[in-house]
């Protein structure tokens, strides 16, 4: 696999590589416009066409710095950024509220973010709410029938990936030849914190994907649906995934998509086989007692 120039910090360029030429209108989604250039500058939101179809685009700007919240730079999602992204999602839902399923616009999340705002002011005012608000908005859009595709181009790190990516229907990632980073923590830090030698962890991770870093490990866990090994592959892969997701939704196969669908994929690919077992056990145990908890009639 030939190493390629990293896409890290190049979210805006990625938008142009993916959408129809010259079609991206930043700061407008449905009826909502984001006119204040100082509001959540780390979040890029707007509308484009993709294969001729109206699509909401949400990305991080790796070069932006939020003057009001100095811990927000290099693609970090701060409070303003999280709520701005949530607003873009709600505006997408509202714009297509009356439309039939197949006409609801897709949302494409371009993922290159190292984290959430790690500051004192953020904790005082509740950074956790901003990122949770965005996740709930994405989950709502997904459950209301919008196709949501995440395209990992650079950093998809821990809580920031939860926030911006892991609520998508389907996740596509550039391969490791682009220096793509998907992890909770690099293995070196894991080694330090859980006090296990790095060599031991590296050895175990050859057969067990649950803690190692990188797109291939997430693929076997079902966390990434598809890997592409060249930037030219992003646009066609996303167009295909949108069509597949829309078809699955039209057929009522919502459960094959999103976080729940990734669970099944993780079992199928052998990366997460314990999850379904414990769930089946609980279902069986609950079925045996459910009658006791039903109301008396």
């Amino acid at each position, binding site marked *: 696999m030939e190493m390629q120039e990293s896409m890290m910090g190049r979210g805006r360029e990625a938008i142009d590589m993916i959408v129809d030429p010259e079609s991206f209108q930043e700061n407008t989604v449905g009826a909502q416009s984001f006119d204040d250039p100082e509001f959540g500058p780390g979040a890029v939101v707007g509308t484009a066409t993709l294969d001729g179809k109206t699509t909401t685009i949400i990305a991080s700007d790796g070069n932006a710095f939020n003057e009001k919240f100095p811990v927000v730079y290099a693609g970090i999602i701060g409070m303003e950024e999280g709520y701005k992204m949530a607003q873009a999602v709600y505006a997408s839902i509202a714009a297509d509220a009356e439309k039939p399923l197949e006409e609801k616009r897709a949302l494409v999340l371009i993922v290159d973010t190292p984290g959430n705002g790690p*500051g*004192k002011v953020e*904790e005082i*005012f*509740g950074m*956790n709410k901003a990122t949770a608000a965005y996740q709930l908005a994405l989950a709502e859009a997904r459950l209301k029938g919008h196709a949501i595709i995440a395209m990992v181009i650079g950093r998809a790190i821990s809580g920031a990936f939860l926030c911006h990516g892991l609520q998508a229907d389907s996740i596509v990632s550039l391969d490791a030849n682009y220096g793509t980073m998907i992890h909770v923590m690099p293995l070196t830090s894991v080694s330090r914190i859980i006090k296990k030698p790095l060599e031991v962890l590296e050895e*175990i991770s050859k057969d067990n994907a649950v803690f190692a870093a990188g797109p291939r490990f997430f693929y076997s866990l079902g966390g990434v649906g598809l890997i592409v090994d060249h930037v030219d592959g992003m646009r066609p892969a996303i167009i295909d995934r949108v069509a597949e997701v829309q078809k699955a939704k039209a057929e009522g196969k919502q459960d094959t998509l999103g976080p729940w669908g990734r669970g099944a994929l993780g079992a199928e690919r052998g990366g997460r086989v314990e999850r379904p077992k414990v769930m089946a056990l609980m279902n069986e145990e609950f079925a045996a007692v459910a009658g006791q908890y039903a109301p008396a009639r």
Partner: protein
Amino acid sequence: MSNWQNLQPRSFLEASARDRALGLVDEGSFTELAGPFDRVTSPHLELLGDAVAFDDGIVTGIGRIGKTPVFVISQEGKFIGGSVGEIGGAKMVNTIKLAIEFHDDLVAKHPDLTDEEKPVVVISFETGGVRLHEANAGLLAHAEVMDQLQKARGKVPVIAVIGSKVGGFGGMGFVAAATDAIIMSEFGRLGLTGPEVIEQEMGKEEFDASDRALVYRTTGGRHKYIMGDANFLVQDSIEAFRKQVVELAPLPVSDFEAMRRIGSPETVEKQLRLVALAAEMQPQDAVDVWAKAGNENAAGLLDVPFAEFMSTVKRLAV
């Protein structure tokens, strides 16, 4: 006195996850699902040569409060900080899923089902989020929990109870924020980036994690109550938490929707007014915000007795 009666006056902070679960629901009503006798343990910890727990550090099951079926998830901070791995995460996800399915079954069977007969979910948080020993699986489980919380909307109310020292941080800080109603004690803590992590990433000037008073001012129950992030603040006992859950359990789901801090375009607007206030104030300390809320004795608010705090505190309104 029965074990259940003995549990009631006990400190929630010091209780185990199982005692919290047992004590929150009616006496003798709790059935544990995938409990310790099932011995479902983490193979990933075993592979690393680490100790395992027969419940993987999380108690899941169903009990009853009056006529309400109550699905309970209770995290155990004494086992690897209550961290969430593949099995514990799956137990959490599936408990909420079972509650939604049970709701749908009951509604289908009984068109006259009353609000108090509809299931609720109660989650006791004691976790810093992802378990690093199985980090990727834990992370993916968090996304599944968020998905289930959205699926529960409008059907099954989800109540967060936070009265543990570990509290709810990391990815589980998102999850707690995404529930319908949050009950805290003053010893409970809620946030995203833990004090140690902020200090490590941004330096001691940004946050001195060894300053316990600072930690509680920023993330503790009293602060979160002033900010509106906790809907209810209760004394540190199992019965005090239970009493609040008992009051909430029979309410219609629309009442829960009204308690939400996030989850709609309108609540996002409101939160953005708070963010604008943060930008304008640039507070050095939570005390600045308490004063802004109209508390004359802001600096002393952590020290006044609980009852006095509750009767005099002014909560932030935007």
